[in-house]
């Protein structure tokens, strides 16, 4: 059954990026386009360090740190330079393009062929546990035998890492600093009147957001086996698609619920893309177009559904009113309902 499993695998990795986008877009209410650049920065730094013989774990953390710094710069451009949020992000994104090329020593692509990565290390541990054959037997037994992966290691390890990050985000957003950060996105004037430094919190929030994005970039580079200077194009839209799909499907009642929705939204997005690419007509190059369409749909569909519900409610009201009136009223209501 085509690429469903790899959609799950990459979905849980991209979920970390989506959590970063959630932090800037939803919590801080800051449409941060730095993401397109910082994703690559994470990938480039980790790939570069791995190629130069660093441990993949240190390389990944370094990528994450670079993302944090990049996000802080965007925040400083906005808060201290008084540049509008969109422009601050775009400026940083453009600047990062050159910086990323420098990190990659002016090559547009750094392959990781044959290098040890986080995934090669963790899956080798995983395989020693011998759980793969057990899981595969289980799934064959329930009739899903034909879509099984070589190893479950990547998916399970990444699912755990992603859920840990989700849990950490939930925890952080309930701390004293976290509450002030949320209020910064909600009502700056109010939280300033309760002695919070909204500039500092904006910088911190964008730093954390881009740290997560760069972390995801570092992991995707190791998952795919290369870092590419163009791999971040449209990343912000993918992140946004995940957030919006997740919120629409799974709700935003509480913070914990919303972050779970974002994680699941990222996975659902990957599955939608995998299905779309199964369609004969589409080619790999259409990916961004499909993504844009998904975002447009998920922005418009909920509104259309709401409007239809509203319409149905109105018709119902008319119908009940009609009953208490004469026959003519009833007929009108009935014909309205029929149409």
């Amino acid at each position, binding site marked *: 059954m085509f690429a469903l499993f790899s959609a799950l695998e990459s979905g849980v990795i991209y979920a970390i990026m989506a959590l970063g986008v959630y932090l800037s877009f939803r919590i801080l209410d800051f449409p941060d386009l730095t993401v397109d650049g910082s994703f690559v920065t994470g990938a480039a730094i980790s790939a570069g360090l791995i190629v130069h013989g660093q441990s993949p774990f240190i390389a990944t953390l370094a990528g994450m740190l670079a993302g944090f710094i990049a996000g802080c710069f965007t925040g400083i451009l906005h808060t201290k330079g008084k540049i509008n949020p969109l422009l601050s992000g775009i400026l940083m994104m453009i600047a990062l393009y050159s910086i990323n090329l420098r990190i990659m020593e002016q090559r547009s692509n750094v392959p990781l062929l044959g290098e040890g990565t986080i995934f090669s290390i963790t899956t080798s541990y995983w395989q020693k546990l011998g759980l793969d054959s057990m899981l595969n037997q289980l799934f064959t037994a329930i009739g899903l035998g034909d879509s099984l992966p070589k190893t479950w290691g990547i998916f399970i390890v990444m699912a755990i890492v992603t859920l840990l990050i989700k849990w950490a985000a939930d925890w*952080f957003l*309930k*701390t*004293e*600093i*976290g*509450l*002030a950060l*949320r*209020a910064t996105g*909600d*009502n700056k*004037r*109010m*939280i*300033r*009147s*309760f*002695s*919070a*430094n*909204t500039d500092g919190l904006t910088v911190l929030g964008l730093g954390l957001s881009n740290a997560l994005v760069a972390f995801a970039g570092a992991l995707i580079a190791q998952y795919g086996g290369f870092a590419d200077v163009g791999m971040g194009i449209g990343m912000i839209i993918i992140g946004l698609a995940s957030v919006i799909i997740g919120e629409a499907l799974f709700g935003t009642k509480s913070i914990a619920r919303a972050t779970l929705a974002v994680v699941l939204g990222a996975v659902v997005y990957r599955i939608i893309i995998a299905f779309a690419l199964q369609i004969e007509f589409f080619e790999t190059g259409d990916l961004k177009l499909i993504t844009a369409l998904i975002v447009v749909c998920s922005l418009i569909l909920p509104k259309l559904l709401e409007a239809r519900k509203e319409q149905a409610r109105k018709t119902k009201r008319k119908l009940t009113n009609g009953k208490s009136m004469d026959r003519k009223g009833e007929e009108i209501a009935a014909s309205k309902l029929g149409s």
Partner: protein
Amino acid sequence: MRRLLHLNSVHKIFNEDTPDEKIGLSNINLKLEPGDFVTVIGSNGAGKSTLMNVISGVLFPDAGEIRIKGKNILSLPEHKRSRFIGRVFQDPMAGTAPTMTIEENLAMAYARNKRRTLRRGITKRSRDFFQEAVKSLHLGLENRFTAKVGLLSGGERQALSLLMATFTEPDILLLDEHTAALDPSRAALITKLTKQIVAEHGLTTMMVTHNMQQAIDLGNRLIMMDKGQIILDVDEVNKRSLTVESLLNEFQRIRGEKMASDRALLS
């Protein structure tokens, strides 16, 4: 004894040297003793909000100094001053965070004079304390603690804002027409709560209002502003015999013209 608040020749001019030049404050001198409750009146554009804003740090004066408990606070940015200055705004939406719950809002207000850390924002102990505090409003909000503040009515939000601004006992409380956007019964409720809370904590308070009767009824001192200046300062003893009529006459005597505020006359 040191003055609680001391403004010394404070000036503020907007858009200086442009055709839009406007005088915000001109040569303001004001001293408040601890526990003073000053009501501030004046026509539209008199500079009342500007006065509040230079004290709270939203605006920086062009000249003069502002001291709180003897300490010059002009070098402090707005958010640092909010450790000891409580504020309630005119807009009921401005004082609370709508997508966060009642208890989260209270927790943020409670953290105002501490350093914010990675400790839990709401603990069992603080929740009990918040419950007690909210009960004193008698609005039943204690039963809706996990409801988002955006769901509350304007009056309820303003009552909550007032509680949040005061329960950490700031050195000074600034109220800028905080009942103006509410319907009369809600406004009366907030006025009652204001009186109750200010008395309970003995807060030093400045309250801007367009309601002259309210300005006369509340507090122990009244100042009237016009064109960026304090033109009248009524102390406790003289305030007792004030009427709306006598205030309007006084304005006319000082300025040689009728007070240009329909809102002031209406109320």
